[in-house]
């Protein structure tokens, strides 16, 4: 069962949502991470996401399988963009269906937290002043490449 995907084209959240149907589902919770125009007080102009595709795929699948065993849910899917994104573009989408809303919300939040923590995808921010920086959270300071 393939539940996680990387894509270098715009996320089709309508199609993603349409795949999560079940007569037993009373709740559908979803999360969409979008490119926003600021980070840590700086103006962001655009983002670029780079992935290690083989490992990102297997780690993404492992996270969704783990969510299905941890929470009382019926199904879950997630997809993450790679490449160049503009402000407002969806970067990541997570959807969960369950009989009840509690597990749907809990699983959706757990999945996005796990994806952000574990999946080998990296974000390079482009700032208003023309500089760029790969984001490696936890670094004393970000690794800045002035290009």
């Amino acid at each position, binding site marked *: 069962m393939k539940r996680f995907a990387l894509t270098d084209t715009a996320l089709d959240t309508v199609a993603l949502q349409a795949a999560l149907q079940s007569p037993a589902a009373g709740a559908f919770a979803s999360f969409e*991470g979008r490119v926003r125009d600021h980070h840590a007080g700086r103006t962001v102009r655009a983002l670029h*996401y*780079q*992935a*290690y595709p*083989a*490992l*990102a795929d*297997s*780690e993404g699948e492992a996270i969704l399988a783990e969510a299905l065993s941890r929470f009382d849910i019926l199904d879950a899917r997630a997809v*993450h963009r790679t490449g160049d994104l503009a402000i407002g573009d969806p*970067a*990541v989408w997570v959807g969960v269906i369950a009989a009840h809303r509690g597990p749907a919300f809990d699983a959706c939040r757990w999945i*996005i937290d796990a*994806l*952000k*923590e*574990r*999946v*080998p*995808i*990296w*974000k*390079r921010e482009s700032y208003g002043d023309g500089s760029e920086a*790969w*984001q*490696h*959270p*936890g*670094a004393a300071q970000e*690794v800045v*490449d002035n290009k």
Partner: protein
Amino acid sequence: MAVTVLYFASLRDAAGRDSETLPQPASLRALYAGLRARHGFALPAERLRVAVDGAFVAWDTPLADGAEVAFIPPVSGG
């Protein structure tokens, strides 16, 4: 006797390449130490995870000939 190293994000920029093939190193730690000195990687090994042949492994995992190694800087998807 050789290994292939894949680079991502700031490591790729610093190395100036996606990957390179190198003589078999003594260990994963020795491999990263040498590459860090050569390419000027900002990140110390303690801040990285390491993957071999597409799966996360411990830093003390022995390296087989022909292994594909990736040093994984802190991730920032989402």
